[in-house]
């Protein structure tokens, strides 16, 4: 294999890694806040992609133009899921929590199939299209835009969590919910907000992905699996670490595809994950 192919792959993996990281960030945020894994996370992504698609098909909005709309919709959706489902299982055993979100995942996927059918859809002629040639390497512009967008969203999220009062209240709730509520933080509101922000992150990721990826009811499944691995690799609840973990996942996926075989790329990512958690059960940067 030539160096160029390898570099090309690395760049592609890096770009995709930022998007993976953004998807995983929402998952990690929610987990850090209340120790619940949202197994419907991939379906949130799918809904965001469909929202983008329909804004394009019906309202003639480009994915980038409709991005704020999608993010807002998903934020509201996250709030609704929290109030409609999650609030009721906060004290339930882990098994019930797992299956509540699994049930939601099955429900959302089936709902999408019932409403929009199973065909693959694609946003044609997005605003950002074509590719860039840099010193013999080709970079897809939609991918580049998605990657930069994801990075920007990630930066915004980080700023929000670490620099605003609400963000600090979120962190306080994640650290110790009792102490936080004694300090006058409404933890229920923080949980709801966490679900809203978590869904908004994946909403942004979905809108960005919709620029160049096929849209269908099952699209969330493989991204969600990667997101769980990314979160666990970075360490549950550690949002900044998901950025590094996302890049690792993106790059490893591409390298495995190039060096071993494309069919095995996910298997290699999962194997890497297993190796890492065996060596560090809390993930690369996690607290246990």
């Amino acid at each position, binding site marked *: 294999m030539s160096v160029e192919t390898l570099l090309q792959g690395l760049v592609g993996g890096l770009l995709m890694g930022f998007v993976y990281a953004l998807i995983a960030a929402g998952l990690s945020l929610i987990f850090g806040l209340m120790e619940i894994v949202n197994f419907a996370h991939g379906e949130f992504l799918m809904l965001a992609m469909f929202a983008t698609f329909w804004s394009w098909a019906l309202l003639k909005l480009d994915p980038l133009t409709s991005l704020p709309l999608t993010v807002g919709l998903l934020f509201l959706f996250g709030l609704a899921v929290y109030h409609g489902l999650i609030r009721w*299982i906060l004290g339930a055993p882990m*098994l019930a929590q*797992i299956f*509540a979100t699994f049930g939601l995942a099955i429900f959302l996927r089936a709902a999408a*199939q*019932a409403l929009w059918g199973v065909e693959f859809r694609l946003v044609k002629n997005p605003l950002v299209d074509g590719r860039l040639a840099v010193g013999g390497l080709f970079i897809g512009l939609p991918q580049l835009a998605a990657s930069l967008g994801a990075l920007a969203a990630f930066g915004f999220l980080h700023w929000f969590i670490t620099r605003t009062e609400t963000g600090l209240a979120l962190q306080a709730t994640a650290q110790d919910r009792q102490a936080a509520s004694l300090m006058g933080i409404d933890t229920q509101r923080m949980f709801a907000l966490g679900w809203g922000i978590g869904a908004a992150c994946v909403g942004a990721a979905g809108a960005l992905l919709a620029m160049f990826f096929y849209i269908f009811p099952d699209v969330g499944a493989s991204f969600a699996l990667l997101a769980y691995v990314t979160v666990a690799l970075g360490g549950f609840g550690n949002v900044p670490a998901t950025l590094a973990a996302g890049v690792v996942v993106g790059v490893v996926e591409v390298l495995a595809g190039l060096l071993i075989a494309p069919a095995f790329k996910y298997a290699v990512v999962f194997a890497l994950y*297993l190796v890492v*958690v*065996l060596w560090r*059960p809390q993930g690369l940067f996690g607290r246990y």
Partner: protein
Amino acid sequence: MTPRGLRWAGAAAALAVLVIFPQVVTKPFPRHVMITIFLYAMLAQAWNLLAGYCGQISLGHAVFFGTGAYTSTLLAKHAGLSPWGGMLAGAVLAVLLSQCIGYPVFRLRGHYFAIATIAVGEIIGTLMINWDWAGGARGLFVPIKRPDSWINFQFHESKQNYYYISLALLLLALWVTRRVERSRLGYYLRAIREDQDAAASLGIPVAAYKQRAMALSAGLTALGGSFYAQYIFFIDPDSVFPTALSILICLVAVLGGVGTLWGPLVGAAILIPLGEWTRISFGGTGKAVDLLVYGALIMLVSVIQPGGIMALAQRGRRRTG
């Protein structure tokens, strides 16, 4: 009669009804539904041994199901071995595999464990899709042998014998669970489920006992897999190795009630006919209404009674009694 005697009489009567059922009902479809209920009840019971009693939530049990299905089919195809022998070989292989998987993943806890089992399931599923000798993504047909025979584990005339075999498998799973419940193993497993660190501090070799629960669970699941292959005559990675199957197995147990002897059977008796009914009523429209109902039901059970239907029934009994 004592309550205990009454319960045994009730169980014996129920069993008698189940044994007579295929003699009275000869249509293939009701028999098929019953066979499917038995199979899933049995698989859910096997999962329950590990997840319900020992608290280790595996989301990758399809691996053992697939191991059973592939082992018996490959041995029948390439070595001409009777599927009964293949079934046994599949169970042994699944137990060995479970120990190899368990050794690393049991060091993880909670969500890390659950996600690791998904990862293992996905890896093995991918390997099977790409393993050409084992049929790859195209799958395998079980070599058809006529006429019907018990030795060949093939019956083309009617589903009656499959019915009895699946019932026997279910009884085996129930019997094993009952034995475990009342043995030292059962108490140790429950202690590990309640508080792993406390169990370890009392001198329970936690890792070793998790492995035993895993071995039992995997072996039983593989028996179900071999049965499935002989019943359907066709297997491929998509039907015997998918994560969706792992989840379905858990759902049956969760709906009925985890950590109970009868929960998985109750769950299967509700979920499987519901699935068949919605599939027939709404299936083929491509609208996935069956899955809509499934998903809503699961959310409802998780919210209303996380202990499943068994917990609901027990609560009712306490109230009236």
